[in-house]
Protein backbone atom coordinates (compact mmCIF):
# COMPACT_ATOMS: atom_id res chain seq x y z
CA UNK A 1 0.00 0.00 0.00
CA UNK A 2 1.07 3.50 -0.69
CA UNK A 3 1.94 6.04 1.94
CA UNK A 4 -0.76 7.24 4.26
CA UNK A 5 -1.70 10.49 5.83
CA UNK A 6 -3.05 11.53 9.19
CA UNK A 7 -6.61 12.80 9.17
CA UNK A 8 -7.91 14.98 11.95
CA UNK A 9 -11.41 16.46 12.21
CA UNK A 10 -11.83 18.93 15.05
CA UNK A 11 -15.06 20.66 16.10
CA UNK A 12 -15.79 22.98 19.02
CA UNK A 13 -17.25 19.93 20.77
CA UNK A 14 -14.03 17.98 20.48
CA UNK A 15 -12.09 15.86 18.01
CA UNK A 16 -14.30 13.60 15.91
CA UNK A 17 -11.74 11.71 13.86
CA UNK A 18 -8.05 11.16 14.41
CA UNK A 19 -6.94 8.34 12.14
CA UNK A 20 -4.36 7.30 9.57
CA UNK A 21 -6.06 7.09 6.19
CA UNK A 22 -5.29 6.55 2.50
CA UNK A 23 -7.31 9.30 0.86
CA UNK A 24 -9.57 12.15 1.87
CA UNK A 25 -12.20 13.83 -0.30
CA UNK A 26 -13.77 17.04 0.93
CA UNK A 27 -16.11 19.79 -0.25
CA UNK A 28 -13.77 22.72 -0.74
CA UNK A 29 -14.31 26.27 -1.82
CA UNK A 30 -13.83 25.53 -5.50
CA UNK A 31 -15.62 22.19 -5.45
CA UNK A 32 -14.71 18.77 -4.21
CA UNK A 33 -11.03 17.98 -3.84
CA UNK A 34 -9.07 14.90 -2.92
CA UNK A 35 -5.90 14.68 -0.90
CA UNK A 36 -3.39 11.83 -0.94
CA UNK A 37 -0.17 11.38 0.99
CA UNK A 38 2.66 13.85 0.28
CA UNK A 39 0.30 16.58 -0.80
CA UNK A 40 1.76 20.07 -0.97
CA UNK A 41 0.89 22.42 1.93
CA UNK A 42 -2.60 23.59 1.26
CA UNK A 43 -5.25 25.68 2.97
CA UNK A 44 -8.85 25.91 1.87
CA UNK A 45 -12.21 26.87 3.22
CA UNK A 46 -14.77 24.09 3.56
CA UNK A 47 -18.38 24.26 2.54
CA UNK A 48 -21.29 22.32 3.96
CA UNK A 49 -21.17 18.84 2.50
CA UNK A 50 -19.89 15.32 2.80
CA UNK A 51 -16.32 14.45 3.67
CA UNK A 52 -15.19 10.99 2.64
CA UNK A 53 -12.08 9.09 3.59
CA UNK A 54 -10.74 5.66 2.83
CA UNK A 55 -9.02 3.56 5.41
CA UNK A 56 -7.70 0.12 4.52
CA UNK A 57 -10.07 -0.09 1.57
CA UNK A 58 -13.11 0.83 3.67
CA UNK A 59 -14.81 4.07 2.81
CA UNK A 60 -16.29 6.24 5.52
CA UNK A 61 -18.20 9.50 5.36
CA UNK A 62 -18.88 12.46 7.58
CA UNK A 63 -21.23 15.35 7.16
CA UNK A 64 -19.34 18.57 7.81
CA UNK A 65 -20.47 22.16 7.98
CA UNK A 66 -18.50 25.29 7.31
CA UNK A 67 -14.91 25.75 8.36
CA UNK A 68 -11.50 25.27 6.82
CA UNK A 69 -8.86 22.65 6.30
CA UNK A 70 -5.11 22.63 6.41
CA UNK A 71 -2.73 20.17 4.79
CA UNK A 72 0.92 20.02 5.76
CA UNK A 73 3.53 17.32 6.40
CA UNK A 74 1.22 14.45 5.53
CA UNK A 75 -1.31 15.68 7.99
CA UNK A 76 -4.73 16.98 7.07
CA UNK A 77 -6.74 18.83 9.70
CA UNK A 78 -10.30 19.99 9.32
CA UNK A 79 -11.65 22.70 11.58
CA UNK A 80 -15.39 22.66 11.14
CA UNK A 81 -18.33 23.80 13.19
CA UNK A 82 -19.90 20.38 13.24
CA UNK A 83 -19.22 16.89 11.96
CA UNK A 84 -21.51 13.89 12.11
CA UNK A 85 -21.21 10.31 11.04
CA UNK A 86 -23.87 8.80 8.83
CA UNK A 87 -25.08 6.47 11.56
CA UNK A 88 -25.73 9.40 13.90
CA UNK A 89 -27.98 11.21 11.47
CA UNK A 90 -31.68 11.25 12.17
CA UNK A 91 -33.20 10.97 8.69
CA UNK A 92 -36.70 11.98 9.74
CA UNK A 93 -35.38 15.09 11.37
CA UNK A 94 -33.32 15.94 8.32
CA UNK A 95 -36.36 15.44 6.08
CA UNK A 96 -38.43 17.75 8.24
CA UNK A 97 -35.61 20.26 8.29
CA UNK A 98 -35.55 20.13 4.49
CA UNK A 99 -39.25 20.89 4.26
CA UNK A 100 -38.91 23.73 6.73
CA UNK A 101 -35.94 25.18 4.92
CA UNK A 102 -37.69 24.95 1.55
CA UNK A 103 -40.71 26.77 2.91
CA UNK A 104 -38.62 29.46 4.49
CA UNK A 105 -36.58 29.83 1.36
CA UNK A 106 -39.73 30.36 -0.69
CA UNK A 107 -40.95 32.97 1.76
CA UNK A 108 -37.63 34.74 1.79
CA UNK A 109 -37.51 34.87 -1.99
CA UNK A 110 -41.02 36.30 -2.03
CA UNK A 111 -40.16 39.00 0.48
CA UNK A 112 -36.76 39.60 -1.07
CA UNK A 113 -35.15 39.27 2.32
CA UNK A 114 -31.55 38.54 1.52
CA UNK A 115 -30.44 37.69 5.04
CA UNK A 116 -33.22 35.17 5.55
CA UNK A 117 -32.56 33.70 2.16
CA UNK A 118 -28.92 33.04 2.91
CA UNK A 119 -29.87 31.40 6.17
CA UNK A 120 -32.56 29.26 4.62
CA UNK A 121 -30.21 28.23 1.85
CA UNK A 122 -27.60 27.14 4.39
CA UNK A 123 -30.22 25.19 6.34
CA UNK A 124 -31.40 23.49 3.16
CA UNK A 125 -27.87 22.65 2.22
CA UNK A 126 -27.24 21.06 5.58
CA UNK A 127 -30.45 19.03 5.43
CA UNK A 128 -29.71 17.79 1.91
CA UNK A 129 -26.17 16.76 2.81
CA UNK A 130 -27.45 14.86 5.81
CA UNK A 131 -30.04 13.01 3.76
CA UNK A 132 -27.52 12.20 1.06
CA UNK A 133 -25.07 10.84 3.56
CA UNK A 134 -27.69 8.82 5.39
CA UNK A 135 -28.87 7.22 2.16
CA UNK A 136 -25.37 6.43 1.09
CA UNK A 137 -24.82 4.74 4.44
CA UNK A 138 -27.86 2.53 3.88
CA UNK A 139 -26.98 1.36 0.39
CA UNK A 140 -23.40 0.50 1.37
Amino acid sequence: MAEKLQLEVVTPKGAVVNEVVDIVTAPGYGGEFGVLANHAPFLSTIKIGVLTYKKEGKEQSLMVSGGFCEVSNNKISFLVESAERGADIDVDRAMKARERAEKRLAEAVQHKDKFDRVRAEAALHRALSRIKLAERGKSA
Partner: protein
Amino acid sequence: MASLKEVKMKIGGVKKTSQITKAMNMVAAAKLRGAQQKMENFRPYAEKFNAAMGNLSSGMDSGSFPLMEVREVKCAEIVVVTSDRGLCGSFNANILKMADKLMKKYEADGKKVSFLCIGKKGASYFKKTGKVRKTYPDLMGTFQMFNARAIAQDIAANFLAADADEVQIVYGKFQSVAVQKPASQLLLPVKPVAADEQAAATQVSAAYIYEPSTEEIMEVLLPLYMNVMVYHAMLEVSASEHAARMSSMDNATNACKDIIHNLTLIYNKARQAGITGELMDIVGGAEALKG
Protein backbone atom coordinates in the same frame (compact mmCIF):
# COMPACT_ATOMS: atom_id res chain seq x y z
CA MET B 1 -32.29 34.99 76.68
CA ALA B 2 -34.30 33.35 73.92
CA SER B 3 -36.86 30.79 74.98
CA LEU B 4 -36.14 27.10 74.55
CA LYS B 5 -38.65 26.68 71.79
CA GLU B 6 -37.36 29.62 69.77
CA VAL B 7 -33.81 28.33 69.86
CA LYS B 8 -34.96 24.89 68.82
CA MET B 9 -36.84 26.31 65.84
CA LYS B 10 -33.85 28.32 64.83
CA ILE B 11 -31.61 25.26 64.91
CA GLY B 12 -34.11 23.46 62.71
CA GLY B 13 -34.15 26.35 60.24
CA VAL B 14 -30.38 26.59 59.97
CA LYS B 15 -30.17 22.83 59.51
CA LYS B 16 -32.51 23.05 56.54
CA THR B 17 -30.51 25.90 55.05
CA SER B 18 -27.36 23.85 55.35
CA GLN B 19 -29.06 20.97 53.56
CA ILE B 20 -29.88 23.27 50.68
CA THR B 21 -26.40 24.77 50.47
CA LYS B 22 -24.88 21.31 50.63
CA ALA B 23 -27.10 20.14 47.78
CA MET B 24 -26.22 23.24 45.74
CA ASN B 25 -22.56 22.56 46.36
CA MET B 26 -22.88 19.07 44.98
CA VAL B 27 -24.93 20.17 41.99
CA ALA B 28 -22.34 22.84 41.21
CA ALA B 29 -19.57 20.26 41.46
CA ALA B 30 -21.33 18.04 38.94
CA LYS B 31 -22.00 20.94 36.59
CA LEU B 32 -18.44 22.13 36.90
CA ARG B 33 -17.24 18.78 35.63
CA GLY B 34 -19.46 19.16 32.60
CA ALA B 35 -18.33 22.72 31.96
CA GLN B 36 -14.69 21.77 32.30
CA GLN B 37 -15.18 18.90 29.89
CA LYS B 38 -16.75 21.28 27.40
CA MET B 39 -13.76 23.59 27.76
CA GLU B 40 -11.36 20.69 27.35
CA ASN B 41 -13.15 19.62 24.15
CA PHE B 42 -12.95 23.08 22.73
CA ARG B 43 -9.24 23.54 23.37
CA PRO B 44 -7.85 21.66 20.32
CA TYR B 45 -10.18 23.59 18.03
CA ALA B 46 -9.15 26.93 19.51
CA GLU B 47 -5.46 26.09 19.34
CA LYS B 48 -5.58 24.96 15.73
CA PHE B 49 -7.66 27.94 14.84
CA ASN B 50 -5.26 30.41 16.38
CA ALA B 51 -2.31 28.75 14.68
CA ALA B 52 -3.95 29.01 11.27
CA MET B 53 -5.02 32.55 12.00
CA GLY B 54 -1.44 33.43 12.89
CA ASN B 55 -0.18 31.85 9.67
CA LEU B 56 -2.58 33.87 7.62
CA SER B 57 -2.67 37.25 9.26
CA SER B 58 1.11 37.66 9.35
CA GLY B 59 2.36 39.90 6.62
CA MET B 60 -1.12 41.06 5.76
CA ASP B 61 -2.29 44.60 5.67
CA SER B 62 -4.76 45.03 8.50
CA GLY B 63 -6.46 47.95 6.81
CA SER B 64 -7.88 45.82 4.03
CA PHE B 65 -10.46 44.02 6.18
CA PRO B 66 -13.45 45.81 7.64
CA LEU B 67 -13.25 43.80 10.85
CA MET B 68 -9.60 44.75 11.35
CA GLU B 69 -10.00 48.41 10.57
CA VAL B 70 -8.65 50.68 13.29
CA ARG B 71 -10.76 53.80 13.61
CA GLU B 72 -10.65 56.72 15.94
CA VAL B 73 -12.68 55.62 18.93
CA LYS B 74 -15.82 57.65 19.46
CA CYS B 75 -18.13 54.93 20.71
CA ALA B 76 -17.02 51.83 22.52
CA GLU B 77 -18.99 48.72 23.23
CA ILE B 78 -18.39 46.53 26.24
CA VAL B 79 -19.54 42.93 26.05
CA VAL B 80 -20.19 41.74 29.58
CA VAL B 81 -20.37 38.00 30.10
CA THR B 82 -21.80 36.98 33.47
CA SER B 83 -23.81 34.10 34.85
CA ASP B 84 -27.60 33.97 34.85
CA ARG B 85 -27.88 33.09 38.51
CA GLY B 86 -26.48 34.44 41.71
CA LEU B 87 -25.38 32.65 44.86
CA CYS B 88 -21.86 32.27 43.58
CA GLY B 89 -19.93 34.55 45.88
CA SER B 90 -18.31 37.65 44.49
CA PHE B 91 -17.82 36.16 41.02
CA ASN B 92 -20.34 38.32 39.13
CA ALA B 93 -19.62 41.37 41.27
CA ASN B 94 -15.96 41.20 40.25
CA ILE B 95 -16.80 41.06 36.55
CA LEU B 96 -19.27 43.92 36.88
CA LYS B 97 -16.79 46.02 38.80
CA MET B 98 -14.26 45.58 36.03
CA ALA B 99 -16.81 46.47 33.35
CA ASP B 100 -17.85 49.50 35.39
CA LYS B 101 -14.25 50.67 35.63
CA LEU B 102 -13.79 50.22 31.91
CA MET B 103 -16.91 52.26 31.22
CA LYS B 104 -15.70 55.07 33.50
CA LYS B 105 -12.34 55.05 31.78
CA TYR B 106 -13.96 55.42 28.37
CA GLU B 107 -16.32 58.10 29.56
CA ALA B 108 -13.51 60.04 31.20
CA ASP B 109 -11.99 60.28 27.70
CA GLY B 110 -15.28 61.60 26.40
CA LYS B 111 -16.32 58.44 24.56
CA LYS B 112 -19.75 56.98 24.37
CA VAL B 113 -20.24 53.51 25.81
CA SER B 114 -22.83 50.87 25.09
CA PHE B 115 -23.25 47.46 26.64
CA LEU B 116 -24.08 44.04 25.32
CA CYS B 117 -24.85 41.69 28.17
CA ILE B 118 -24.65 37.92 28.01
CA GLY B 119 -26.15 36.55 31.22
CA LYS B 120 -28.85 38.02 33.42
CA LYS B 121 -26.65 39.41 36.17
CA GLY B 122 -24.88 41.87 33.94
CA ALA B 123 -28.12 42.89 32.25
CA SER B 124 -29.85 43.76 35.51
CA TYR B 125 -26.79 45.58 36.83
CA PHE B 126 -26.36 47.88 33.83
CA LYS B 127 -30.06 48.33 33.17
CA LYS B 128 -30.24 51.47 35.26
CA THR B 129 -27.47 53.15 33.25
CA GLY B 130 -29.70 52.96 30.17
CA LYS B 131 -26.74 52.07 27.96
CA VAL B 132 -27.56 48.46 27.36
CA ARG B 133 -27.92 47.85 23.64
CA LYS B 134 -28.83 44.22 23.76
CA THR B 135 -29.10 41.39 26.25
CA TYR B 136 -28.86 37.64 25.89
CA PRO B 137 -30.37 36.17 29.05
CA ASP B 138 -30.93 32.50 29.87
CA LEU B 139 -28.15 31.21 27.65
CA MET B 140 -25.44 30.29 30.09
CA GLY B 141 -27.01 27.00 31.12
CA THR B 142 -27.17 25.31 27.76
CA PHE B 143 -25.37 27.44 25.20
CA GLN B 144 -23.76 26.00 22.09
CA MET B 145 -21.61 27.22 19.27
CA PHE B 146 -24.55 28.60 17.30
CA ASN B 147 -25.59 30.81 20.21
CA ALA B 148 -22.12 32.29 20.26
CA ARG B 149 -22.30 32.72 16.50
CA ALA B 150 -25.52 34.73 16.69
CA ILE B 151 -23.99 37.02 19.30
CA ALA B 152 -20.75 37.39 17.37
CA GLN B 153 -22.66 38.30 14.22
CA ASP B 154 -24.55 40.95 16.12
CA ILE B 155 -21.37 42.44 17.54
CA ALA B 156 -19.71 42.44 14.12
CA ALA B 157 -22.72 44.07 12.45
CA ASN B 158 -22.69 46.81 15.07
CA PHE B 159 -18.99 47.37 14.51
CA LEU B 160 -19.36 47.45 10.73
CA ALA B 161 -22.20 49.95 10.97
CA ALA B 162 -19.74 52.19 12.87
CA ASP B 163 -22.01 52.26 15.92
CA ALA B 164 -19.02 51.07 17.87
CA ASP B 165 -15.39 51.70 16.99
CA GLU B 166 -13.93 49.39 19.56
CA VAL B 167 -15.36 46.36 21.31
CA GLN B 168 -14.06 45.01 24.58
CA ILE B 169 -15.17 41.77 26.16
CA VAL B 170 -15.21 41.37 29.94
CA TYR B 171 -15.60 37.91 31.41
CA GLY B 172 -14.51 35.69 34.27
CA LYS B 173 -11.41 33.68 33.55
CA PHE B 174 -11.23 30.19 34.94
CA GLN B 175 -7.79 29.76 36.43
CA SER B 176 -8.49 26.92 38.80
CA VAL B 177 -11.37 25.59 40.86
CA ALA B 178 -10.36 28.01 43.61
CA VAL B 179 -9.39 31.04 41.53
CA GLN B 180 -11.54 32.90 38.99
CA LYS B 181 -10.43 36.31 37.87
CA PRO B 182 -12.23 38.90 35.82
CA ALA B 183 -10.47 39.61 32.53
CA SER B 184 -10.97 41.96 29.64
CA GLN B 185 -9.87 41.59 26.05
CA LEU B 186 -10.07 43.62 22.90
CA LEU B 187 -12.48 41.91 20.55
CA LEU B 188 -12.69 44.36 17.68
CA PRO B 189 -10.88 45.57 15.67
CA VAL B 190 -9.13 42.21 15.33
CA LYS B 191 -5.43 42.62 15.94
CA PRO B 192 -2.96 40.81 13.72
CA VAL B 193 -0.66 38.32 15.42
CA ALA B 194 2.35 39.76 17.24
CA ALA B 195 5.60 40.41 15.40
CA ASP B 196 7.86 37.76 16.92
CA GLU B 197 5.42 34.99 16.04
CA GLN B 198 5.19 36.34 12.54
CA ALA B 199 8.78 35.52 11.66
CA ALA B 200 8.27 31.84 12.33
CA ALA B 201 4.88 31.80 10.70
CA THR B 202 5.83 33.42 7.42
CA GLN B 203 8.34 30.72 6.61
CA VAL B 204 5.64 28.08 6.83
CA SER B 205 2.92 30.07 5.17
CA ALA B 206 5.07 30.94 2.19
CA ALA B 207 4.83 27.42 0.85
CA TYR B 208 1.08 27.06 1.24
CA ILE B 209 -1.36 26.83 -1.60
CA TYR B 210 -4.42 28.86 -0.75
CA GLU B 211 -7.83 28.24 -2.11
CA PRO B 212 -9.38 30.76 -2.50
CA SER B 213 -6.85 33.57 -2.04
CA THR B 214 -5.55 34.46 1.41
CA GLU B 215 -7.70 37.57 1.41
CA GLU B 216 -10.86 35.64 0.77
CA ILE B 217 -9.97 33.05 3.36
CA MET B 218 -9.45 35.84 5.85
CA GLU B 219 -12.91 37.14 5.05
CA VAL B 220 -14.30 33.79 6.13
CA LEU B 221 -11.93 33.36 9.03
CA LEU B 222 -12.45 36.69 10.75
CA PRO B 223 -16.12 36.12 11.60
CA LEU B 224 -15.23 32.60 12.68
CA TYR B 225 -12.55 34.08 14.88
CA MET B 226 -15.18 36.23 16.57
CA ASN B 227 -17.30 33.13 17.19
CA VAL B 228 -14.35 31.41 18.76
CA MET B 229 -13.63 34.37 21.03
CA VAL B 230 -17.23 34.75 22.22
CA TYR B 231 -17.69 31.02 22.67
CA HIS B 232 -14.46 30.82 24.59
CA ALA B 233 -15.49 33.64 26.95
CA MET B 234 -18.84 31.94 27.56
CA LEU B 235 -17.14 28.64 28.32
CA GLU B 236 -14.80 30.31 30.78
CA VAL B 237 -17.64 32.09 32.53
CA SER B 238 -19.76 28.98 32.80
CA ALA B 239 -16.91 26.96 34.30
CA SER B 240 -15.97 29.81 36.64
CA GLU B 241 -19.56 30.28 37.73
CA HIS B 242 -19.91 26.69 38.86
CA ALA B 243 -16.50 26.72 40.54
CA ALA B 244 -17.37 29.94 42.38
CA ARG B 245 -20.74 28.58 43.43
CA MET B 246 -19.14 25.39 44.63
CA SER B 247 -16.73 27.16 46.94
CA SER B 248 -19.22 29.75 48.18
CA MET B 249 -21.78 27.05 48.96
CA ASP B 250 -19.10 25.09 50.75
CA ASN B 251 -18.41 28.18 52.87
CA ALA B 252 -22.11 28.60 53.54
CA THR B 253 -22.43 24.99 54.68
CA ASN B 254 -19.50 25.45 57.05
CA ALA B 255 -20.99 28.67 58.40
CA CYS B 256 -24.26 26.80 59.03
CA LYS B 257 -22.37 24.16 60.98
CA ASP B 258 -20.80 26.84 63.17
CA ILE B 259 -24.15 28.50 63.81
CA ILE B 260 -25.77 25.18 64.69
CA HIS B 261 -22.94 24.47 67.12
CA ASN B 262 -23.37 27.84 68.86
CA LEU B 263 -27.13 27.55 68.94
CA THR B 264 -26.93 24.07 70.43
CA LEU B 265 -24.75 25.45 73.22
CA ILE B 266 -27.30 28.16 73.91
CA TYR B 267 -30.11 25.62 73.80
CA ASN B 268 -28.39 23.30 76.28
CA LYS B 269 -27.58 26.20 78.60
CA ALA B 270 -31.19 27.36 78.56
CA ARG B 271 -32.42 23.85 79.18
CA GLN B 272 -30.01 23.42 82.08
CA ALA B 273 -31.11 26.74 83.55
CA GLY B 274 -34.74 25.62 83.33
CA ILE B 275 -34.03 22.35 85.14
CA THR B 276 -32.07 24.14 87.84
CA GLY B 277 -34.97 26.54 88.34
CA GLU B 278 -37.48 23.68 88.64
CA LEU B 279 -35.26 21.82 91.13
CA MET B 280 -35.01 24.95 93.25
CA ASP B 281 -38.79 25.17 93.27
CA ILE B 282 -39.21 21.54 94.36
CA VAL B 283 -36.57 21.85 97.08
CA GLY B 284 -38.19 25.09 98.25
CA GLY B 285 -41.62 23.45 98.36
CA ALA B 286 -40.33 20.44 100.32
CA GLU B 287 -38.62 22.70 102.83
CA ALA B 288 -41.86 24.65 103.33
CA LEU B 289 -43.87 21.44 104.01
CA LYS B 290 -41.32 20.25 106.54
CA GLY B 291 -41.47 23.43 108.50
